[in-house]
């Protein structure tokens, strides 16, 4: 019954490394999202995508990029990881226009040392 899968549950990376967080959904949803969640700051939108090869900046895109080459996969890229990117990252997908709820992945807890 898996719907949204994130590639790693826990990840430890070094400062300056390029980091890839992968998210795959099996519901044929058009919309996909990446959020980060930090204590006291709630969930903040990094990037989202309405369709293959489309991307839109969210509220905090600096230091991140994304890739959506296939409908089911949405990747978040940290070009040069920094310690302030230590966080919980959540991927979500939702259908376009129907109002049906979004489904979330299990989250990736990233620590940058």
């Amino acid at each position, binding site marked *: 019954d898996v719907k949204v899968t994130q590639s790693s549950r826990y990840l430890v990376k070094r400062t300056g490394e390029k980091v890839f967080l992968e998210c795959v959904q099996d519901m044929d949803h058009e919309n996909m*999202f990446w959020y980060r969640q930090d204590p006291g700051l*709630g969930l903040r*939108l990094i990037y989202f995508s309405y369709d293959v090869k489309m991307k839109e900046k969210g509220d905090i895109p600096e230091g991140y990029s994304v890739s959506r080459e296939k409908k089911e996969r949405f990747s978040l890229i940290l070009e040069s990881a920094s310690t302030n990117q230590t966080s919980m990252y*959540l991927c*979500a997908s939702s259908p376009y226009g129907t*109002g*049906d709820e*979004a*489904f*979330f992945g299990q989250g990736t807890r990233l620590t940058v040392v």
Partner: protein
Amino acid sequence: ELKVEQNPLFLSMQEGKNYTIYCNYSTTSDRLYWYRQDPGKSLESLFVLLSNGAVKQEGRLMASLDTKARLSTLHITAAVHDLSATYFCVHNTDKLIFGTGTRLQVFP
């Protein structure tokens, strides 16, 4: 600016008591969702509210939507410890806009 304001931020309540969490949103889109998050876990969908006057109930939780007031409520009836979690209202305007979350603790 699109906003979703949720209150209270923190709620400590005794088992058996009732309480309501409020969620105000600032746009005209009327898709409102409630999610639950347990510590260290992801978000689980609770309710989808799509029209004015929508009311949905599951167990001890009931959610409602008033689109004219741009207000949704999550009512907890006779709280039990298992309801301890963080609850988010989320407004769907094609982007998902999250409320701040309400951390609920239910004690004996």
